[in-house]
């Protein structure tokens, strides 16, 4: 265990814990955008910047990517941190003025938008959460493509791809709501591709696309029920069989 302080609060943490984790576990608020607990670390949004003092040196680091390996003291609300964070927010709100989460963060930290560049308003902050989610699922159907102002998320060749299984992981983790999809009973459309969504024969919800079940390796003759009903049916079967014995 390593002894550190965050905002002068003494804490003991496991070696290798990130500053962000240590802070969150102790109820200290650090704003984040690109960080997601289920995904690999990327540290690209820089919103979680904090100031640390490490062996006499003070510096700004991205708390989500900084593993604690020795005694450091962390400050989350110094003037330097505020400046760094507000610059990040100022740039984000300029390109993405309509993103609800960015509006909320700006309100929380008192950032007023000063118009900086004449760009088309967007919702995507290029945090790559969707790309990392797709990669974590193993499908790897989307990537950040292009560079500079043209950088955006797309499936290969900007066309529908066999790799996409229509699982909506990308849309689920998107912090700003940029990734949208169309969903009607039994149909789903995302990334230029249309999917059939299967309906559970017991509870009636539309629970998964055929491609998702293919990807999960669920046998073709075992696709009538959603996960919850499947569990229910199996447990009922188990109980009646054990009662017979």
């Amino acid at each position: 265990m390593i002894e550190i302080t965050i905002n002068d609060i003494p804490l003991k943490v496991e070696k290798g814990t990130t500053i962000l984790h240590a802070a969150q576990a102790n109820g200290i608020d650090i704003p984040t955008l690109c960080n997601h607990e289920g995904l690999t670390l990327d540290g690209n949004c820089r919103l979680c910047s904090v100031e640390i003092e490490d062996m006499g040196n003070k510096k700004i680091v991205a708390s989500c990517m900084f593993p604690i390996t020795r005694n450091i003291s962390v400050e989350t609300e110094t003037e330097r941190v505020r400046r760094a964070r507000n610059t990040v927010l100022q740039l984000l709100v300029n390109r993405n003025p309509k993103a609800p989460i960015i509006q909320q963060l700006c309100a929380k930290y008192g950032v007023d938008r000063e118009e900086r560049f004449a760009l088309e308003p967007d919702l995507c902050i290029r945090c790559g959460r969707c790309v990392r989610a797709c990669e974590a699922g193993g499908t790897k159907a989307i990537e950040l493509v292009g560079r500079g102002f043209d950088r955006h998320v797309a499936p290969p060749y900007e066309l529908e791809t066999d790799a996409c299984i229509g699982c909506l992981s990308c849309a689920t983790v998107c912090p700003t709501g940029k990734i949208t999809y169309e969903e009607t009973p039994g149909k789903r459309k995302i990334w230029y591709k249309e999917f059939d969504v299967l309906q559970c024969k017991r509870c009636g919800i539309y629970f998964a696309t055929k491609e998702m079940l293919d990807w999960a390796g669920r046998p073709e003759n075992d696709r009538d029920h959603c996960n919850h009903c499947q569990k229910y049916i199996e447990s009922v079967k188990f109980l009646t069989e054990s009662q017979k014995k």
Partner: protein
Amino acid sequence: MGEIDRIAEILHKHRQDPRYLLAILLDIQESENYISIEAMRTVAEHLGISESRVFAVVTFYRALSQKKKGRRIIRVCTGTACHLRGSAAVLQELEKQLAIKTGGVTEDGEYTLETVNCVGACALAPVVTSGENSFGRMGPSKAAELLAEGAFA
């Protein structure tokens, strides 16, 4: 030999390892003057990486192109020094002579005209490069002359 065979040969030349992705793509670009969707699919399958990864790399580098380029590429430097010394006029003249816009390909597929942000030869500004050659202290009439001579090889 068709495109498929040439790409197969390029793949054979490199080790079958994802870190040779860029080297392979550069070779395909040089051989085919562009990278087709089929080429990207083949490379992804060969290296065992996702097509989205290959597509991301192809769209990231300016040296890689998804549109077929001309056999010869003329690059006009529009860096600060070249700009001040009149590279815009050189570019305009070449556009006129080739009857294409910057980034376009001539009808016969011979030339592509591009701009480049700096070639590191600012003392020779304005600079035009073509293949391995560079031409310094360029002016509109000199550029037109060199083009007519077929010097931009």
